[in-house]
């Protein structure tokens, strides 16, 4: 049986510090049939030069700065695979990530999307924060409803739409909420296959108040839509 092509999309914005590690973790995948596309949101550092060192193994598409959602969508537009995967430029994949996830699609043909567990790790510069969060539940493996753990059929994006470009922080959560509302067939794997790096420049850290407001807004919008379909609260 022919294996399907997986397009691996790496949205990047001034990502020179960590992007080589991210790309290396994609190129080390045991799953053999991949294309790698860096979607560049108008970087002004040497992100493009670093990507260029990978030659034909990594594609590069760029736009003027429009935000993370628009950048992921730029990658989707450039992708040619039947399956789409995403890795933020500061995060890392386990080398068997795609292989294990594609096995799930083979075992379960109706599956439209597959996410894995994720574990945070701290940049060396934030060792004190790693200590601070050692006993926090979020330092354990957590369900990765985030793009960096996601492998989805392209047809799912055609069915429910791409990422909402008016959102700057919560576009991924909004997409998962929308997918669930529309009955997505999704599996959460117990395997921890993605590592999410905490560092000084995490987008959500830099604008925490704005990100929380946007987050509450997308949850509210989803609630209003689902309530219109007859959904009731668990209790009150």
């Amino acid at each position, binding site marked *: 049986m022919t294996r399907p092509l997986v397009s691996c999309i790496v949205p990047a914005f001034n990502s020179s510090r960590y992007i080589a590690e991210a790309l290396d973790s994609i190129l080390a995948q045991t799953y053999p049939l991949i294309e790698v596309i860096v979607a560049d949101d108008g970087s002004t550092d040497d992100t493009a030069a670093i990507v260029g060192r990978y030659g034909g193994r990594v594609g590069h598409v760029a736009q003027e700065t429009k935000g993370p959602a628009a950048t992921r969508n730029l990658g989707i537009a450039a992708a040619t695979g039947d399956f789409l995967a995403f890795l933020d430029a500061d995060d890392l994949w386990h080398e068997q990530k795609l292989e294990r996830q594609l096995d799930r699609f083979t075992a379960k043909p109706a599956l439209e999307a597959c996410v894995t567990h994720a574990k945070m790790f701290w940049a060396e510069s934030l060792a004190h924060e790693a200590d601070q969060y050692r006993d*926090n539940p*979020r330092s354990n493996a957590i369900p990765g*409803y985030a793009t960096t753990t996601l492998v989805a059929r392209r047809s799912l994006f055609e069915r429910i739409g791409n990422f909402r470009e008016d959102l700057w922080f919560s576009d991924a959560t909004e997409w998962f909420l929308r997918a669930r509302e529309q009955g997505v067939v999704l599996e959460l794997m117990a395997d921890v296959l993605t590592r999410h790096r905490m560092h000084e*420049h995490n987008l959500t*850290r830099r604008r925490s108040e704005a990100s929380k*407001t946007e987050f509450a807004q997308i*949850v509210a919008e989803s609630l209003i839509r689902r309530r219109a379909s007859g959904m009731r609260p*668990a209790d009150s």
Partner: protein
Amino acid sequence: MTMRYRLKADNIAATVIDGEAIIVNLTTGVYYSMDKVGAEIWQMIEQGLSVPRISVLVVARYQVDEERARTDVEALVGKLSAEDLISPSDEPALAGSEPVMAVGLPYVTPTLEIYRDMGDLLALDPPMPGLRDIPLQSAGEVGTQ
């Protein structure tokens, strides 16, 4: 009971849309809604008004007697506190924070609706509760945006 509360801002994301308050507990992914009276009480807690003062304002605004308003406000505050969305506070009310409102509106007992259906999904993307903002200048390198 405690007189004054504050929102647990580090632990929640909240917004008010069309008179409905939506609150997400960022640690659990459980989210909540309160409409009309409840949303106004939420906003008055946010403004730092005391529980007795909130009860007085509810009586002034709605067709409800003092005792029922006090009982309902205390019950709602108790639930919000139990769900870890607010905590006792010694801070004074914000200056000029008492709302100017219409009066004589029909009263509906404020309720806290609780939704647990998206808890798994809302667990990764939100900001870490209590994570401190680190100024870009102190990071020892040029900021990225």
